[in-house]
Each structure stands twice: as structure tokens, then as C-alpha cells.
């Protein structure tokens, strides 16, 4: 009976939604320590933790500690829409942070393949000006790189301060001259594919600049500005997927902390969850909350043990947080073992004892999310098993 119910859930989960969800990805760069928020390991010897206590609300469990009140605030308020994934294998522990970023963004370090979000955006939002908008986030090259656009908040600030008003005649000229070149009238007699790419870039430069330059609000933090730009872009149907960075580049890399690993990550977690609470309120007030998925991810986890500098080295197993009204949240999927490695599990039924057990990876998670838009990455990714366990309702 349980299996039958799960299969029904699975079929329902694959059914098409009228409008594919927009996705907002928040990158936490450098590698967070999952034991401080996502999976309580304080009772296991051999793992250096920050203490705290396991807390549960509406089925969602997290590590609560008084020094991180914003974590409790967010988790309690958003428990029913939140899913935590633990023991996620990112392949991210590599020679450079960019490689690690690629690990979480597309689960392979090859530069040939595109990242998940650009692939999704290219499939469901090809008609938008910027299917995938990246703000201060690593763009991962690949076949669909024309479907993504990298925006730097510094540029938006600069554009705002410069108040550059591009005359309409310059835009007219640009469109006109590239159309001439594409039609062979300009005498360039050159191949059209690359001219098209140039044309697209010029059009974006000319048309998006005034759009974005008006969006910078000096009263807000950089993260809130990035988020605001992303939400405005969603609302104006400029973009379908946005990836933004929280904080500074590589900020969570506490390999060699200035104070201590736990002190620094504590501050970062507090800041992150305070911002997430703000973000959800913005999403709701923007009328975007009914059809959006928020992914909060880090490219790495952190080593179970402290190193000689009082920091923690990077670790390939990490956690990920999802928020959406499109599913029933209040659940934790996956787990870390006593060595802080992922515990293999069945991605459909969640069983760790029997069945087709695998290490959960971003592949499985994003394949499941994309299934909400009736998209299957089968044939495009190497391991497309969607982690449908995410969407299983609790057994009645």
C-alpha cells in the first residue's frame, strides 16, 4: 500500500504545471558547515560542532542555538514550505573555488556542459530576454551560455551613478546595423552566427542597462539589492531563473579563520537567515510566492575536524535548503553519517536500507525540481534519477 501511494505521488509529481516555476538560487560561496544548522551532530564524537540542540517544528528539524536567533525565526515561520537536504555529495572539493562552484552548479567539472539552471531556463523560458540571470555568481559555460547573462552589482551601481542615458538613435543604429550585417547588406559578408551573438550582447547592453541601473537602492545591502533586482526581473518577465550570491565571494571559506571557524560561520548563518526571512516577505509582497522555488546552496561542506588554524577544511558533502509553496515542506531528506559523509539512499522512496541506493547529488535534487515543469533531464545529464522523495507526502 505504501509503495502504491508513493507511485501515485510520483505520477502526480511528474504532472505538468500550467506555468513552470521561476527559480531563485542563492549561492553561499566557500562552503558552509552543515552541523551548525542543518544536521545536529553534537552527540557524535569525532566531529567538531558548535553545540546547540536539535529542534523540530512542523516536521522540519534543525540545529537551534541562541547565538543564531534568525535561524529559528526563519525555520519556525517557513517550516511547512522548507525542505532540508543533508548528506548531499557535491564533488565540489577541488583545486579551486570555481571548480567547486561548478560542482554544485552542474555536478561535473568539465567546462563543456552547461549548468542546471541555464539548462532549465533554456528549456522553459527560451522566449525571455534573459532566461537565466546571474548576479555576482559564477557563470558556468556550456552549450546554452547564450541563455544566461552575467550581471555585476558593481556595474549596476556604476550605471546608476553615471546616469548614462543612451540616446534612442544609438539603439536604433545598433539594431539597424546588425540587422543589415545579418542580412548581408552591410558588405561584411561574414557568417551570421557570431554576428547574432554580438547583436544579442549589444541589444542587452543597450536595453538592459537602463532597466538595471534604476534598480540599485543604496539603502539596502548588496544581497538585498541582488535579490530585489532578481525579483523585479521575475516580475517584469525579464528572466525566469536568477542566481545570486549571498555576501562576499568565498566568504564562507573558514579554512583559516580570523577568529574561529564557529564564530565566523555563526555570524554568517545569522546574517543569511535574517536575509532569507526578509527575502520571503519580499517574494510574498511581489506576488511571486505562488510559483517560485528558492534554492539556498553552498558549493561545499566543511571537514568534520578543526585544522591547525582553528578552521575547517573543505568537505565534499554538504546540505541544501529549498523553499516553495509548490510542495509540502517540513521535512529533512538525506543524512550525514558519523564521518560526515552522505548516507546512500533510494532517491524515489528515501529508503537507506534497501532499494536502489545512491549518494544524493545536485543532479537528483534539480532533476526532481525540474520535473515540476514536466522536464526530464534524461539524455542530457548522466544521472537523471530525480529525488522524488522530496515530494512524497507523509504516510497517512
Amino acid at each position: 500500500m505504501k509503495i502504491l501511494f508513493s507511485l501515485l505521488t510520483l505520477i502526480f509529481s511528474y504532472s505538468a504545471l500550467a506555468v513552470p516555476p521561476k527559480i531563485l538560487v542563492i549561492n553561499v560561496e566557500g562552503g558552509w558547515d552543515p552541523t551548525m544548522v542543518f544536521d545536529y551532530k553534537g552527540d557524535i564524537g569525532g566531529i567538531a560542532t558548535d553545540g546547540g540542540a536539535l529542534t523540530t517544528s512542523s516536521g522540519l528539524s534543525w540545529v537551534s542555538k541562541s547565538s543564531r536567533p534568525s535561524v529559528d525565526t526563519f525555520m519556525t515561520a517557513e517550516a511547512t514550505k522548507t525542505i532540508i537536504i543533508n548528506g548531499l555529495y557535491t564533488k565540489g572539493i577541488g583545486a579551486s573555488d570555481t571548480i567547486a562552484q561548478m560542482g554544485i552548479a552542474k555536478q561535473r567539472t568539465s567546462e563543456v556542459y552547461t549548468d542546471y539552471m541555464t539548462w532549465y531556463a533554456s528549456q522553459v523560458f527560451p522566449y525571455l530576454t534573459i532566461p537565466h540571470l546571474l548576479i555576482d555568481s559564477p557563470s558556468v559555460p556550456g552549450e546554452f551560455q547564450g541563455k544566461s547573462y552575467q550581471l555585476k552589482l558593481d556595474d549596476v551601481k556604476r550605471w546608476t551613478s553615471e546616469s548614462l542615458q543612451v540616446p534612442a538613435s544609438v539603439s536604433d543604429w545598433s539594431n539597424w546595423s546588425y540587422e543589415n550585417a545579418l542580412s548581408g547588406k552591410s558588405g561584411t559578408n561574414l557568417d551570421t552566427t557570431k554576428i547574432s551573438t554580438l547583436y544579442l550582447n549589444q541589444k542587452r547592453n543597450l536595453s538592459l542597462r537602463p532597466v538595471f541601473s534604476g534598480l540599485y537602492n543604496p539603502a539596502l545591502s548588496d544581497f538585498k539589492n541582488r535579490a530585489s533586482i532578481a525579483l523585479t526581473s521575475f516580475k517584469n518577465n525579464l528572466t525566469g531563473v536568477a542566481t545570486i550570491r549571498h555576501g562576499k565571494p568565498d566568504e564562507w571559506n573558514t579554512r583559516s579563520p580570523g577568529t574561529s571557524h564557529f564564530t565566523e560561520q555563526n555570524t554568517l548563518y545569522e546574517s543569511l537567515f535574517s536575509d532569507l526571512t526578509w527575502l520571503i516577505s519580499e517574494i510574498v509582497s511581489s506576488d511571486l510566492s505562488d510559483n517560485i522555488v528558492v534554492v539556498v546552496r553552498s558549493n561545499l561542506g566543511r571537514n568534520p575536524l578543526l585544522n591547525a588554524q582553528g578552521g575547517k577544511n573543505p568537505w565534499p558533502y554538504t546540505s541544501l535548503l529549498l523553499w516553495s509553496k509548490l510542495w509540502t515542506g517540513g521535512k529533512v531528506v538525506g543524512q550525514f553519517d558519523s564521518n560526515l559523509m552522505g548516507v546512500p539512499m533510494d532517491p524515489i522512496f528515501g529508503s537507506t536500507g534497501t532499494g536502489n541506493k545512491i549518494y544524493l547529488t545536485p543532479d537528483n535534487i534539480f532533476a526532481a525540481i525540474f520535473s515540476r515543469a514536466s522536464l526530464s533531464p534524461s539524455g542530457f545529464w548522466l544521472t537523471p534519477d530525480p529525488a522524488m522523495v522530496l515530494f512524497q507526502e507523509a504516510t497517512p
Partner: protein
Amino acid sequence: MTSRTWKIFIIVFFSLQCGKDIETLSKTPQKKPNNSAAPTTASSTPSKNKDTVYKNPSRQIRRLTLDLQNRLPSSEETEIYTRNIDTAESLTTFFLKSNDADSAMATLHRNFWDLWQPKTLEQLSATDAALRTAMTTASTDLLLDDPIKTLRFMISQDESFEKIFTKKYSLMEPSTAIFYNQTSAQGPDVDTNVVVYSDISRPNLGILSSFGWNASLPKTSGSKNYSGAAEAIRKLTCLSFNSATAHNFGQAGIKTVDSSLLSTASSHSSCTSCHNQFHTLAEGLPYLSSSTTLTNWLTYDQNAFSSGIYKGKSYLTPDELANLISADSRISSCELENVVEEIFQRKLSSLADQDLKQILFERWTESKNVRNLVSDIIASPEYQHQVFGSAGSITNNLSSVRVFGPAQWDGFIKQILPQYTIRNLVLQNPAIGKSAGNPEIIPLANLVPRQRLNGYEKQFIPSEIYTQSAFDLAVRIADAVVATELSSTALAQNRKVLSSVPDFDAFGATSTEVKNQISDTWNKWTSLKTTSSDYRISKLYSVYSESIQTGSTDLEKARNAWKWVLTSILIAPEFIIY
């Protein structure tokens, strides 16, 4: 006789002496690589259609000049070449022997100059008060230019490529001497100083020892030396050790982070492929020094590794290490690949490309002479076809499109704005609201997508990364031109660009003067022959007419108008594509 007159004289001389049909040239490279049959593919077979071959001589000389000298041809050169279309080979030879070509060829070695990360220098200077004081934007720029200057000097001396790793000096500017702990030491016969490594106890690794090159490696803190070493190796060898399994201890069969890691890692290929083969190399590089390259790896169990395979390892002497690097065929192969890709403006991917690379490599290993290499590349059927062939005959082949890359922008800016470089366009004119005393420095790095700076550059053709920023760059160039050339004291005769409009602010120019100026600039920058009555000029004139309305003074209005006209020309496909 001025240098320009000399050039014209030499071109004319070659024109008279060395006639050769360009169609023949396209089938017979001037230096046929190794007497081997040139690779024949759809993309590299020269066009035999004489009509198309001769179709656009001005565009051909534009390509050759931009590729081999990183500059636009003068109208005199275009005129002479157009009249003497037979002289392609002599012209190519001439270009390759010029001083400009030395610079151009140096910039082809983008591994040595292209990843610009001033942050590293900031961190370097943060712990050293003297360096911090000395580190101005100007000196930083110059410092980062040291490797390319050194490379250019070696090319001008026809030094073997291998020697760039064994040279005992770098060129430096007086203002960067302090970074090398030097005051002033006169260098070779160029207007720069030289730092001799033996004087300051630094490893002798040629230009790899220079601060400028090391500053280009991505390391944002002292704990990131491992990344720097890996990046150095990647840049030098074109090999990536960042494979999916390289640091996945789980997949390497290691269950716990204890002493078993050592025993497994020391024999596991995913570890030893990098750590054993390149350990010496990585550790020899300054600022990637000694045990830090492995410490991060080893800290999983400090005790186990303190007696591990690398304990007490004595490294090669600097000279031995330099020889090791220079003799490593992976490095010369990588450099060849970089230069070819930079010239072809595309990745080498097909089987035919590999054949071509093999042929070039055989010749390259004979001489290791950069000038010969570039000569061979431009004599290859692929290049000949790109430049002289008809784009229409090779449909679906993107390689026929060449786009302004960093080297071309750099050369162009030098031509029209000698006081600026591509790295920084100092915006300090009232027209854009910057005060003269507080110039805003816009490093090129800010105009380039971040992934370019983080090591993804191998994915892109070199020029492509700049197309996203072309509009920003165009606006800045145009801004700088009008700020330089339009003022209350500016005389038309002293201008490099706006010489056809009246003195000073040029506000009162007649429509004829404006159209003539637009068509002059258009023709010079695009190598096209467009009259002032052409529809393109009319279209650009409408840009002028609209923009001249904006501004509170005549000077502001005129600067605004010409800024947008020049920007429009710079973003036009006829200019940016060549």
C-alpha cells in the same frame, strides 16, 4: 624620413619586388610546415574562386594588420595594398619583422599576461608598508606588464621560447623596481630596467618569477596557495588536474581521514598524477612556495604526513628547475595551442585541427622561435582561408568571423589615445561628471565577465569574452576621445580623430563638416570606402542630431554628440568584426 614614410617605402619596395598571386599564396604557404601535406578539410580548404578571393582587399589588409600588428591599417597602407593586391606575402613578411609585430606576438601568449587580478597585489602590499606606499594604480599596471615586456624583448632578440623560463632577468619600469627590491639597474637595449634574480635571491625561472605573472594567479589569501599552484600548472601545461576524482577521497577508496590516506594517496593516480609529476614545479614558483602546496592536502592527518613521502624532499636548484620546465614538452605544446587559438580565434577541436597542430608542433620543436611559429600559423591553409578566402564558400564555419579581442582593442586605443591603455581608461573629464583631482580608474578587469578571471578562459575564443563588454568599452573610448579633443583650446590640426570639425568645441560645425567627419572616421576605422552621402552616414548623422540637443553648454552638447557618434561606430559590426 619618418617611420611612417619608411613603412610606406618598404611596402612599395616589396610591392615592386615580390609580386605573387594571392590565390597561389593561399594554396602554397610561404613556409610549408615540414613539407607535409597540409590538412585538408572543408574548413581549411582555400577558396579557388578568384572573384571571391579578390573581393575585399581592404578587409584583407585590415585583418592582417589587426592580427599581426594589433592596430588598424593607415589609409595609405590600405590604398597601397588595394592597388597591389599581389603583394600579400611580402606584406605579411614585412608585418612580421616590424617592432609592432614583436608586441603583437608577445600578446599572443595570453597565459603570461591575460589573467589580471590586482587583488593579489593588494594583499601582497598589505603586509609591506614600502610596497603599499609604492603601489599606485600606475605602478600596478606597469608591474603587471612586466612579463609581457620581457617576452616582447625576447621575441625581438629571436630568443628560443624555452629561454623565457631560464632567463635570469625580467624587464621592469623604474616605478616598479621597488617590488623587486631594486632601485635601478639598467637593462638590455630597451627603455626599461632589468631585475637580475641572482641579486635578490629569487628563483631563476624567467618570466615565471616575475611579480606580474604571479600576481595573475588566483589566490585570494595565504591559504589559497594550492589553487595558485594548480592554476600555474594548468596555465603552463593546458592540462587540468581538477578532475572529478582528483580530490574525492571517497572515490579514491579512502574511508577515513587518517594515515590510510597517505598510503592510498601515494600510489593513487588521481593524486600522484599531479602531486608527483608537478610537485617540484609547483613548489619552485615564488609565492607558491615550499610545503604550502601540499599542506592543505596533508592537514587531514598532520602526523601521518609529517613523516610522509614528501618529508625532507630537497627540491631541484633553481637552474635545474628552470631547465626542467623549459624542456617539458607539455608546456611548449600548450603554448603552441594557445598561440594558434589566439590567432584563429577559436578552439582547436576537430581532427583536422589536431593534424594541423601536429604539423606545427614538429616545426615548433625544431626552432622554438615564436616569429617562425607565427609565420607558420599564418601560412597554414586555415588562416589563409580565414583571411583571404570567401566567407560565403565556407558556410557553417564560424572561424571566418574575427572579432576585436583584447589585443586589437589595446592596439586601437594606443593609436587614437596614446595616453591611455586598455587596462585603465582614466575618466576624469567634466563631461561625465568626474572631478579632475579624483579620477575614476576603470580597470579592464571590471569590464570582463568574472568567469574569465577565474580560469574558465579556455572555454572561449579569446575575443568572445570582450563582446559582452564592448559597449562599455566603446563608451569609455568615445568619452576619452571627446574629452581629449574637444575643449576651449583644442585645435583641429592636433586631433587624431575629430580633425575635420572646427577648432575648440566644434559646436558650430556645419552639417557638411559633420558628415565629412563621420565618414572620415567611419572609413578609417572600418577600412571601408563610404561617401558622406551613404545611408550609413545619414544614419549616424541622426545620432549626432539627436545627441547635440543634450547638455547645458556648447561644449557639453558637442562632446555628447560626438561621444555617441563614435560609440555607434565602435559598436557597429563593420568595426568590431574584421
